[in-house]
């Protein structure tokens, strides 16, 4: 036939030098490590400045407060990372947290003798159900998660309000053993923070070392290719939303334990902080890269900023502005890094035209 591709003929195959090849080993991982390291540095600098201003900031009480304060955000950020890595987003976590926290209180009101592990499991299951609603709608509608979870952000909160009808649940309504969970320490570390650590470790380990975890990155990196390589994209995304919901549920129960006073507004607006924590922590908003550890560090950083501002007696209104600026800085930095990495990788490609 008349169609002969002119590119049939030979052309030399560029072979990269072994040195270049070795230097590339684990480049992705090193980049991530850089991100986590820079977060740690920022955190360190922040703590240092604040401590110089007021040395109580590094007191054991203060550290305990910090750890306690960030635990819930860390858990939510871990869940959010799972979602964002697949190129989705879950804006309904704040509402799920509120709903579950209130439900936990209601559970104790209805059945005062309930042991706290039962409440914990109930909360996680309720959260998972909410997550399943999100996941199901996304699967059915094939619409960006942003829109669906924006809708359920309203809907779950509405259900929560409707149920609560202005009622408040107080610490006295909940068993002491449960409340202790919220403030107790183990070897000087708040139990809540330990729970968060476990969640982060498990989620991080899962994302890094398990096939299905790696598939989440694949889905976020290139959804069409993921489908073609036989990854059950729909099922994984659904599962991820269930997991995010379940973690929001866990966070809701812990919220109830920590704060003791519950009304239907618990966790309002939290979704923004959670997304901010993940983005600041280096999770790419368009999926495919980022780690739970980074997101957790992002959450710790955001919480610490809040506490620092209070200690430095800076107008708390600056806090929100700082969070916004931080998000912009983080995504801007990511962009710069991505461009530079891409340039370097192009340079090292084996076949340069």
């Amino acid at each position: 036939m008349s169609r002969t591709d002119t590119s049939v003929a030979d052309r030399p195959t560029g072979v990269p030098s072994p040195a270049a090849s070795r230097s590339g080993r684990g480049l992705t991982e090193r980049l991530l490590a850089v991100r986590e390291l820079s977060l740690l540095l920022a955190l360190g600098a922040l703590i240092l400045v604040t401590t110089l201003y007021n040395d109580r900031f590094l007191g054991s009480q203060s550290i305990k407060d910090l750890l306690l304060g960030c635990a819930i955000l860390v858990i939510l950020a871990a869940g959010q990372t799972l979602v964002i890595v697949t190129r989705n987003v879950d804006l309904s976590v704040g509402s799920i947290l509120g709903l579950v926290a209130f439900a936990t209180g209601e559970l104790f009101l209805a059945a005062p003798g309930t042991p706290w592990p039962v409440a914990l499991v109930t909360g996680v299951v309720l959260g998972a159900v909410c997550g399943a609603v999100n996941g199901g709608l996304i699967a059915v509608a094939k619409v960006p998660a942003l829109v669906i979870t924006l809708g359920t952000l309203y809907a779950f909160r509405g259900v929560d309000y409707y149920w609560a009808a202005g009622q408040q649940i107080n610490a006295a309504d909940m068993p002491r053993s449960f409340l202790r969970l919220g403030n107790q320490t183990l070897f000087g570390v708040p139990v809540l923070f330990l729970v968060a650590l476990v969640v982060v470790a498990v989620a991080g380990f899962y994302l890094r070392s398990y096939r299905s975890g790696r598939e989440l990155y694949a889905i976020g990196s290139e959804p069409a290719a993921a489908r073609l390589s036989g990854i059950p994209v729909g099922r994984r995304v659904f599962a991820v939303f269930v997991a995010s919901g379940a973690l929001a549920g866990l966070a809701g129960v812990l919220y109830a334990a920590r704060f003791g006073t519950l009304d239907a507004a618990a966790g309002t607006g939290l979704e923004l902080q959670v997304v901010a924590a993940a983005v600041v922590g280096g999770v790419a908003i368009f999926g495919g890269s980022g780690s739970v550890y980074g997101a957790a560090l992002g959450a710790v950083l955001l919480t610490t900023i809040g506490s620092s501002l209070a200690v430095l007696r800076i107008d708390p209104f600056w806090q929100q502005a700082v969070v916004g600026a931080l998000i912009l800085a983080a995504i801007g930095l990511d962009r710069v890094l991505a461009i530079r990495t891409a340039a370097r990788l192009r340079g090292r490609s084996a076949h340069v035209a």
Partner: protein
Amino acid sequence: MSPDAGTITSPPLLVLDDIAKSFGAVAALRGVHLELHPGEAHALVGENGAGKSTLVKILAGAHAPDSGRITLDGEPLLLRGPADARAAGIAVIYQEPTLFPDLTVAENIFMGRQPLRSLRRVDIREMNRAAEQLFARLGVRIDPARPARGLSIADQQLVEIAKAISFDARVLVMDEPTAALSGVEVERLFGVARSLCARGAAVLFISHRFDEVFDLCQRLTVLRDGAWVSSDPTADLTVGEVVRRMVGRDVDSLFPKQDTVRRDTLLEVRGLSRAGVFSDVSFHVRGGEIVALAGLVGAGRSEVARAIFGIDPYDTGEVRVAGRVLPAGSAAKAIGAGLALVPEDRRQQGLVMELSVERNATLVRRGALARLGLLFGGAERAEARQWTRRLRVKTSRLTAAVGTLSGGNQQKVVLAKWLATRPRVLIVDEPTRGIDVGTKSEVHRLLSELAGEGMGILMISSELPEVLGMADRVLVMHEGRLVRELSRDEADETSVMFAATGQGATA
């Protein structure tokens, strides 16, 4: 390879029987029958749009056939998704690489099948080692631990191939895998395919390169317009016969370029360079002539066109249109100066598939058609009607989404869109890729006519006969440089090929 090449004795491994698939109102495949035997390399050929890729997608489980049966080893095979195909031992190398840019090369290869160690953890070290082994088998060196982002097209294709051979496939489907590969790499790939065949697997090979087809395959199936035409041993066929079956008629009178009067220089490119992409490209195009830009895929031809047209920036050099310097980096200014670019990728660059024929045809002229800054449908419709008639675009209505048209008619809409701007210089990048033979000759006639009217035409084409048939002059690029300029008389298959592969001195 197999001793009894061409004569099939074993029972078929995989049978596709009476497969039909439609997209909307368009039938992509109807009544297709295909048998793959163990140890056989089977070629699937057909024009672009004949339904090959659809068939591949069906085998891969990405599309479900509307009707028909697939059997594997005589058992009915139900493919509900790519996972099922994989489980059945069907591996597919796609025409366009489908990699995960954020993941490492090794992970791309082993996604979903990563080697495990204790606690069912992914064994990264083992995975990298296995990937290195695969690359060794293919005779290439790609760092398995680097991310796939930034790999050249050829390397991406090699990763795809490594992926496909990494699990012992019983059926290996290769959809034009060699387009971006060098000869050495192609040979190694064929070596791997042959060893798979020797172990009783079947290979389905899709390619436009007949030398490769006849080199590798024992049998050959021809598709035309979504329908099965023939399946024969390659030994019984000639290239000419296969082409006749593909297009359904003789192909001689395809390139009717007439001689025209050469006029003034309309486009002049001097010392154009862009780091890492192309360097020091200089040439000119005069009114009335068709200048072909030939070269291998990846030689930088489209990139030069993009830079001239202001899509991409360039580092140094200068572009003049009709003697006046064209500012860099603005397509709008290029259009204003009288340039038009019919891009390489019609779906992504040439057309907005979701918009109507009318909107697409008048998209560039939207400013010129406005009265007092306002556009009400009338002017656009009239303009679109005029040009679609002139180019004989076949569409039910001008308001139909352009995506519903056939490839040839889509290309005509792209041409209509640019001709409507009445350009001085028309740059066409692969103007007949993926369109049917009839439309192809129509496009060629049109280009010839336009040159006759005094337009300067720069044609990028990978189809050598098209280049040789149409061009007054042939410019050949190799690895980002313009290496040869050949007159119509000098240009033949050998001289162009030699220059394109960097062996210019001998031409």
